[in-house]
């Protein structure tokens, strides 16, 4: 019926946990109602087939077949683990098998699960030996290996298990038949081999990746640099002279319960890599990635030309890239919780550990930036108005002779154009002296000799003996200008006043009085203002004002209005020659009577008082 007389290819054999038995006869396996296949070989983990219709990777299939010489169907479910280019040949991985079915297969194959290393050695060292001989030799080889780390850390049970190499015909070397002859479908029912473990951790369609060195994108994306200086792969079977310093801990994943040593990992990796036809070359530094060499087509190892056909080109490419990237990093995903980290794992962990602080630092920077931005916004929101206030204060201080913008200051000016600074809360104890700041608003370019020096003197005398009160916080205190300002010549302009142009000249007839109803009719500026400032002319200044009496008839009749009177201000400052320019006749007598009592400081020309004519307006308003 069947004979187990084959030499298993290293790649597939290394990935098997169960022996395969080739079926010599013709056995047909049904893949549902629409498809079927010729059974090539069979093991507890799966089977090889040549189907009628193409299948796809990872395709779930319900199968049924009869073993040669058996009447009972073997049924179960499986998935396509690998397939050839045509998609009609490949291997199935059993997913679900009945207990008797499994026993039936085991009984048919007559073998127990065999360690893959044994299979590898059998394949590599004695290609043409019968399987029994191979099995007989394989055990001593394994046991005689003095390497502290066996090629594959199989369990003792597996290592000591008798091995019957599945039957793989020699003609399987032919490219066209490789896929069928070298049925290396991974079997996951038993303890996985190193490659199975690695492959199982990859996407499903990556299972056969190590067996597919001819995949062009694999070699391209990995930038494989074949290292021809390395000994042939068939030299390795446990006694490899090449000891790459890299540590790819695939072996350690095999046995979670057995923490693997790094040396074991290296050897296992080497072994695995070499059995898969690829060669792991030592990187220049441990931090560098693993390089995988393209297998030599002239190698004595029967090179499998099988290529995996992906379910779709793009996923394979992408997964290959992911696989390669992970393989290059040496950071295959791990399921073992007990396995000790290897060097590459440490490296990958180091990468992660360095990347995490970098992310944290970046997040910290972002947070700091956000906080700074928020602070800036708050400063702008709350600070700008205050700054504007300060700027305004500075501007106003620069445009006036007020002392300081930090305090509320009121410029005080009397009729003699003596000026002081009324400051809030400051300079409380500053006594007045005889050097008040003086400013002539009427004739700035003239010597500001006061026309009433006695008044000035009186003022000076008065302030020589002040009795200032201590200021209360926030209260206004009158203070004199600093002595440094006092010696300034009276003819000089202390500073441009902020009130120039927006208020009437001090002491001029333009100075208006409040109009407060019958009790306090006011004076409005005359329409025709006298020249108040020439090179040598000093205008007349009102120094005494008497409020006109609102006529009773005007009050009763709610009469309001303005009376304009042309007056001549004599050298003595007394208005005379009053002539009504316009105004209601009922208001004129009151206006004339009031104006007649006013007193002016006579206008001067070259310092000499002169008579001047002015127009005085008196407003009558009812409140």
């Amino acid at each position, binding site marked *: 019926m069947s004979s187990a007389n084959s030499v298993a290819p290293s790649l597939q054999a290394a990935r098997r946990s169960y022996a395969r038995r080739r079926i010599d006869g013709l056995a047909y396996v049904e893949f549902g109602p629409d498809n079927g296949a010729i059974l090539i070989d069979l093991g507890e983990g799966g089977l090889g087939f040549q189907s009628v219709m193409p299948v796809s990777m990872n395709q779930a299939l319900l199968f049924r077949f009869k073993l040669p010489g058996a009447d009972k169907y073997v049924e179960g479910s499986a998935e396509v683990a690998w397939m050839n280019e045509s998609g009609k040949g490949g291997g199935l991985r059993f997913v679900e098998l009945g207990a008797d079915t499994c026993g039936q297969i085991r009984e048919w194959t007559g073998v127990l699960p065999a360690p893959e290393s044994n299979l590898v050695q059998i394949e590599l060292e004695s290609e043409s030996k019968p399987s029994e001989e191979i099995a007989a030799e394989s055990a001593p080889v394994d046991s005689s290996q003095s390497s502290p780390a066996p090629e594959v850390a199989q369990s003792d049970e597996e290592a000591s298990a008798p091995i019957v190499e599945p039957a793989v015909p020699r003609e399987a070397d032919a490219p066209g038949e490789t896929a069928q002859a070298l049925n290396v479908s991974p079997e996951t029912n038993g303890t996985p081999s190193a490659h199975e473990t690695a492959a199982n951790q990859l996407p499903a369609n990556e299972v056969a990746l190590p067996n597919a060195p001819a995949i062009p994108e694999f070699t391209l994306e990995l930038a494989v640099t074949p290292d021809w200086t390395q000994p042939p792969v068939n030299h390795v079977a446990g006694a490899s002279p090449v000891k790459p310093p890299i540590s790819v801990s695939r072996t350690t994943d095999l046995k979670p319960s057995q923490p693997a040593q790094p040396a074991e990992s290296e050897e296992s990796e080497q072994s695995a890599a070499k059995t898969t036809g690829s060669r792991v070359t030592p990187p220049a530094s441990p931090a560098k990635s693993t390089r995988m060499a393209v297998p030599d087509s002239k190698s004595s190892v029967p090179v499998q030309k099988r290529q995996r056909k992906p379910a779709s080109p793009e996923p394979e490419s992408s997964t290959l890239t992911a696989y390669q990237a992970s393989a290059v990093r040496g950071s295959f995903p791990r399921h073992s919780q007990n396995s000790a980290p290897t060097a590459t794992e440490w490296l990958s962990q180091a990468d992660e550990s360095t990347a995490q602080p970098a992310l944290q630092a970046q997040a910290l920077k972002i947070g700091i930036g956000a906080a700074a931005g928020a602070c800036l916004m708050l400063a702008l929101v709350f600070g700008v108005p205050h700054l504007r206030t300060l700027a305004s204060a500075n501007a106003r201080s620069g445009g006036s002779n007020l002392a300081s913008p930090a305090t509320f200051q009121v410029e*005080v000016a009397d009729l003699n154009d003596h000026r002081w600074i009324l400051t809030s809360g400051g300079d409380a104890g500053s006594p007045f002296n005889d050097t008040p700041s003086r400013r002539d608003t009427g004739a700035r370019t003239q010597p500001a000799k006061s026309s009433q020096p006695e*008044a000035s003197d009186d003022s000076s005398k*008065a*302030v020589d003996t002040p009795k200032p009160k201590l200021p209360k916080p926030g209260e206004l205190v009158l203070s004199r200008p600093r002595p440094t300002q006092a010696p300034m010549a009276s003819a000089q302009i202390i500073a441009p006043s902020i*009130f120039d142009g*927006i208020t009437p000249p001090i002491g001029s007839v333009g100075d208006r009085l409040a109009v407060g109803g019958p009790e306090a009719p006011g004076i409005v500026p005359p329409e025709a203002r006298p020249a108040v400032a020439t090179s040598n002319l000093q205008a007349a200044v009102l120094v005494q004002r008497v409020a006109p009496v609102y006529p009773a008839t005007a009050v009763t009749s709610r009469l309001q209005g303005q009376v304009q009177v042309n007056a001549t201000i004599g050298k003595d400052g007394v208005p005379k020659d009053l002539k009504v320019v316009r105004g209601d006749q009922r208001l004129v007598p009151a206006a004339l009577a009031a104006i007649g009592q006013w007193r002016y400081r006579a206008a001067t020309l070259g310092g000499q008082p002169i008579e001047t004519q002015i127009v005085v307006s008196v407003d009558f308003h009812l409140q």
Partner: protein
Amino acid sequence: MALVLTAAIMYFRPGRTTPKPWNSNAITASYVGAQLRQLDSNNAALYLAYEVQNHTDSDYQLADGPAALVMSRLRADGSLRSQQKVRLSYPTFLPARQRARVALEVPSPFGWPESNDPAFQDKLRDLVNQKLLEVQAFVLFDQADRFQIEFPGGWQELKLASALPR
């Protein structure tokens, strides 16, 4: 008939009599300074200088008149009062997007103290405090253009600053 109806609708349409809201952003003012001036022996005036800014694209004539009413906003509760006579010192032409300086005049009957009066400064101080300390700001309402011009009281901040130890 249609014309009559249209005219009636236009006359009685909603919102026709709704007054235009006060525009307080068209013209703004910032405090510049204050001056207390003796007008004669019995009167004084407090001048408050401001810088006004015309934010509109139209020229504006800022003048004292029947349509312009200046009121005081009390510091205590922000209410307005017109008890205190306040007016613009001079009419001001304020071109579009331009600034100009104006002065508010707060006249007051005040017996200007003699220069030899020992309480000279106290009287002046009391006058200023009387005029300003209760006032938060002055507000000019231009009823013709519906402009509300706020003249802030710069003495507030300065007063607070003056309370600090020096």
